[in-house]
Structures are given as structure tokens and as C-alpha cells.
């Protein structure tokens, strides 16, 4: 009744191929964006920004990056936090050594460096598939861990091994307060989501999905596996590099190599498995889940008067993550995004059962 396409006729292919073909979807998205940009900054508390919204936005960006590689192109990577660290350290060094650069330029350049490194570590994917590739990507993780811990130039010869950054300044606008940081990140994420959506809708996205679904058939149609896989690694690492730079500069402020360790890589995988592989919306869901669950685990027992140490809640969170991964893989391998799509299907029929 509410969610019908009645009367919405498309008179050109261009119209049919747009991002949100259904009018109701467009209205909801518009409302959501308006609220996100103009409502939230005034309504949310600092705590909400710092603990939930800001990490959510950054992790969503990284999750989209990983999803492009794993979900859309079918290449497994369990060391992707390595590319986040490349982006973060590249941005740090650029900002340090070329201070005149606009921060947006720093971000893009950091992303490009990460893309290059990503392509390098993506070369094994040309010869090896599936699980073997998973182990190869671990090489990226541990090697980059080591590089940024040992090669002193990257940390500007810091004694402690960690680096710090000043608050970001953009065209005279200093990102000091949480709402300001939030707005900047939101803008970046929206732009990057649109770009990802465009890539996925275009012929490159179809190439990726063809490689994922059946690579021999893809080759027979004329898709070059080298081009498809390396571009997937490059774009995916670009996104993660930018996310890493944002993670370091805006969320953490100062960090050490451990901030981008194997645990983060596994968390990224967790996000896209639970959220939904091969779905941009799924990346949002997965990131939201991983940010919100520990907080829920923190607050809910308190509401019932049960005291739990933060250590216990983080261990509990891990147990729940693990159980959920298995649960979703058994019940709904396409994650929350599929459940959402099923919900929308039901809504289109409502109030009829079928």
C-alpha cells in the first residue's frame, strides 16, 4: 500500500538505471540525508559522536572498500587493515613533510599510495585463488605491521614508535569539535558511497561480479582477469587507505602500528560477513553492528544492575561476534542486507501476505 511502484513509469533507460528508481526510496533517502546533515549535529551528544557516529562512518568506508574486493570481486583478503595503515602513515608523512598540502589532497594521495601497495599485494591473486590467497594477504598484514614498527623514517624517528597529528584544517575550517568532525566524515562517506555505487553499476562492477561468480566464463566473454582483479585490489585499497588516514587523523589523533593489526582486519571481515557481502548497504549495517554491540553490552547489564568489567564485555562481544558469524553463515549467508531486502519485499506486498 505504501511501498508500491504504481504509476512510476520509466521512459528512458537512463531513468531505469538510476541509483534509486523507486520514488519512495528517493524520498526516504533524501529525508535521511537531510536529517544526518542538518539534524544530528544539533541533537547528538559528544559521547554519541565520539563513541558511535565517528568510528561508524570511518569503519563503513573501510568496510565498503573490503566489500568491493571480497563481496563484489570474490577475492578474499584477511589482511586488509594493512592498507589502512599504509594510508594512515602515508597521510602522516605527507602532512608532515609537505605541510602546504590541502588535507583533501593528502587524503587522495594517501589513498593512491595505498592503492599502489594494494595492487602489489594483489598480484598473487593472478595465480592463486580462494583460501590460498587468504594466506597470502596475511603476508601483507604482518609485513606492513613490521615495516611501520621498524622503519623509523615512517614514524619520523619517534622514540615511542607512535605518531600524533594536529587537528585537521580545511580551507580555514578547523575540525575541532565532534560535530564538525562528524560532518566532514559524513560528507566524505556520502561522496565515496556514490562513487562505489557508480563503479558497481558500471561495466567494471559487472566485470568484478563475473570474476566472482565464474571466472572461467568471465574470461570466455573477454574479461581480462588481470585487469579485473588488480583494479579491485586498487580501488579497495584506495578506500581503505583513505579510511585509515581518517581513522588516524580524525578518530585517534595519535596511533601506533598496533592500531591496524590483525584484529582490525578480522573485524573488517566480520563487518561485511554480518552486514552482507556484495552489498554497499551491508557495509553500513556491518559497521553499525560492530560499533554498537560493545556499547550495548556495556550499558544493558548496567541497566539491570549487573556489574561487568570492560574486559568482560569485550570478551563477551567477541563470543557474540563469533557466534553471530556462524549463525549468519548458516541461516542467511548474505547477511543483514538480505534480511533488509526481504523486509522491503514484504513491505511492497503489505498488507497482503503474498
Amino acid at each position: 500500500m505504501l511501498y508500491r511502484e504504481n504509476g512510476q513509469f520509466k521512459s528512458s533507460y537512463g531513468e531505469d538505471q538510476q541509483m534509486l528508481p523507486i520514488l519512495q526510496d528517493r524520498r526516504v533517502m533524501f529525508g535521511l540525508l537531510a536529517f544526518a546533515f542538518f539534524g544530528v549535529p544539533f541533537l547528538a551528544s559528544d559521547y554519541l559522536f565520539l563513541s558511535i557516529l565517528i568510528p561508524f562512518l570511518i569503519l563503513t568506508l573501510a568496510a565498503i572498500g573490503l566489500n568491493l574486493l571480497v563481496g563484489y570481486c570474490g577475492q578474499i583478503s584477511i589482511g586488509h587493515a594493512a592498507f589502512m595503515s599504509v594510508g594512515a602513515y602515508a597521510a602522516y608523512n605527507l602532512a608532515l613533510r609537505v605541510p602546504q598540502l590541502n588535507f583533501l589532497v593528502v587524503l587522495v594521495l594517501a589513498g593512491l599510495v595505498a592503492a599502489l601497495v594494494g595492487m602489489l599485494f594483489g598480484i598473487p591473486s593472478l595465480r592463486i585463488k580462494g583460501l590460498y590467497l587468504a594466506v597470502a594477504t596475511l603476508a601483507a598484514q604482518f609485513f606492513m605491521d613490521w615495516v611501520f614498527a621498524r622503519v623509523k623514517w615512517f614514524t619520523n624517528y619517534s622514540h615511542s614508535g607512535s605518531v600524533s597529528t594536529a587537528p585537521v584544517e580545511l580551507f580555514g575550517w578547523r575540525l575541532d569539535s565532534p560535530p564538525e568532525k562528524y560532518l566532514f566524515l559524513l560528507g566524505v562517506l556520502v561522496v565515496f558511497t556514490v562513487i562505489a555505487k557508480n563503479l558497481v553499476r558500471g561495466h567494471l562492477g559487472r566485470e568484478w561480479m563475473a570474476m566472482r561468480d565464474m571466472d572461467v566464463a568471465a574470461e570466455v566473454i573477454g574479461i581480462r582477469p588481470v585487469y579485473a582483479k588488480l583494479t579491485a585490489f586498487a580501488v579497495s585499497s584506495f578506500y581503505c587507505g583513505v579510511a585509515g588516514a581518517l581513522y588516524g587523523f580524525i578518530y585517534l589523533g595519535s596511533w601506533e602500528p598496533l592500531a591496524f593489526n590483525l584484529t582490525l582486519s578480522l573485524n573488517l571481515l566480520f563487518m561485511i560477513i554480518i552486514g552482507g557481502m556484495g552489498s554497499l548497504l551491508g557495509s553500513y549495517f556491518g559497521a553499525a553492528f560492530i560499533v554498537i554491540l560493545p556499547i550495548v553490552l556495556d550499558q544493558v547489564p548496567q541497566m539491570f544492575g549487573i556489574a561487568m568489567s570492560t574486559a568482560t564485555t569485550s570478551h563477551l562481544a567477541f563470543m557474540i561476534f563469533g557466534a553471530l558469524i556462524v549463525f549468519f553463515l548458516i541461516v542467511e549467508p548474505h547477511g543483514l542486507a538480505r534480511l533488509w531486502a526481504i523486509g522491503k519485499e514484504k513491505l511492497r506486498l503489505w498488507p497482503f501476505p503474498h
Partner: protein
Amino acid sequence: MSEVALHPQARAHRIGEVVLSVDNVSLAFGGVRALTEVSFDVREHEVRAIIGPNGAGKSSMLNVINGVYHPQQGTIRLQGVEFHDMDPHEAARRGIARTFQSLALFKGMSVLDNIMTGRNLKMRSNLLLQALRLGPALAEEIVHREAVERIIDFLEIQAHRKTQVGRLPYGLQKRVDLGRALAMEPSVLLLDEPMAGMNMEEKQDMCRFILDVNDQFGTTIVLIEHDMGVVMDISDRVVVLDYGRKIGDGTPDEVRANQAVIDAYLGVSH
């Protein structure tokens, strides 16, 4: 079946020069000899069938022609150029398209997207333009969408264009497979048992499509098929394989009368 086929004489006029020739090809997997010194040619615009009992090496032959397998011996000559270790995507670039015996569709995508992947070779816009979906990239998407829609009309699958292929019945999936190959606008189309698992009606439809493709677009067709009625009706010439060797080559009538072919099918030991 006969009402579907064009009069043989009308078709014979259009057949041109040799466009594809297989020269002395041998293929082995470890100890298993799939093909032994097979040679034949295919003329432009004709419908060439490859037949033979199970395990004769027919699919392997198609795989060699389009570069999925590389023969240990022998070459493929396409429009005068010789190969023996071409990659599949190179074969595609040179105008060879194929369908698969066990459907190789992209299960995660819709019918429309599957056929659109066939247009991939023709889509040229680079990464940046696609990312911003500006001008040329957008125009390209629309132009190729039109081409794909024409194929969808031709194959009569309009109602299913947005459905995920995994959910379609087998007969419709086979049509999508054909559509994807057609989207490449190939000069040579390799069909691997396009009618396997179909009922009478579906086979008639598929025959009609194949002949229409040959008539309207002039595409050369190399076809593996088990249904003898279909093969005899729609092919111009037939190659017969048995245990990896060629045992017959000629028009359907010639092959039908060939004693070696009859023996092979009846299982006479040799």
C-alpha cells in the same frame, strides 16, 4: 522440426570461405587422450555440427577452439591467423563466443546484467569516468543497454530481465546463456549442447533462435548436439568424433550413410 528449417538450397547460397580451421589438433590430460589429430574446417555463415557418442571429445574440441584448453599438437586458424595457445579472452576479442553445456551463468546477477557482461569488450570508458558516471560513461551504459534490450526482445525474455538468473527455470537460463554470447556480436558462435535437458517446445524455440541468428546476423555457428533430428535438419555440414578421432565429415546425408558413424553409435567394437 522441418517447418523451422529454411530450405537447404536457400542457405547454401550464403555460405562463404573457410573462416575457421582446426589442423591436426591433439589434446591429452595426463594419460587421457581427449583428441587425436583432428582436422576440419568451418565456412563462413554455415551451421556446422559436431556429433559423436559420449566422451568423444566434442566439448574438448570447443574448448580448444576458444582457448580454454591448449592442445599439445596442432593449431587453430581463425581468419587466416594461426594459434595454438590463445587465451579465452583473446579468443573473445577475435570474435569467438560460446555457450556452455553446464550453464556458466553469473548466478549472483540479474538476466540484464548477465547479458550486459557480454557487451564488456565494447565498453571503453575508464575508471574515473565510471566512478563519476559522467558523460561518456553514462552514454555508453545507455547505448549498450539498448543493444542488450534488443537481444532480450529477440529471445523473448523481457518479463525476466530484472530477475536473478539463479531463480529462473533451466530453459530460460539456457536462453540467457545464448543471449550473453550474442551480446558479444561474435563472428563465430560455439554452442555446447544448447538443447540439452529441454522439452519438445523449448527445443523448437531454441532451433528457431539459432537459425534466426544465422540468418539475420550471418553468424557462423559451430554446434554440439545429441538430438539427431535437430542436427540433420539445421546443419549444413557435420563432423563426427569418436574416442577423440574424426570418423566422418560431410553433409548430414553423407554422414548418415557413413558406416563408421553408424558403427560408432551402435557400439560395434573397433
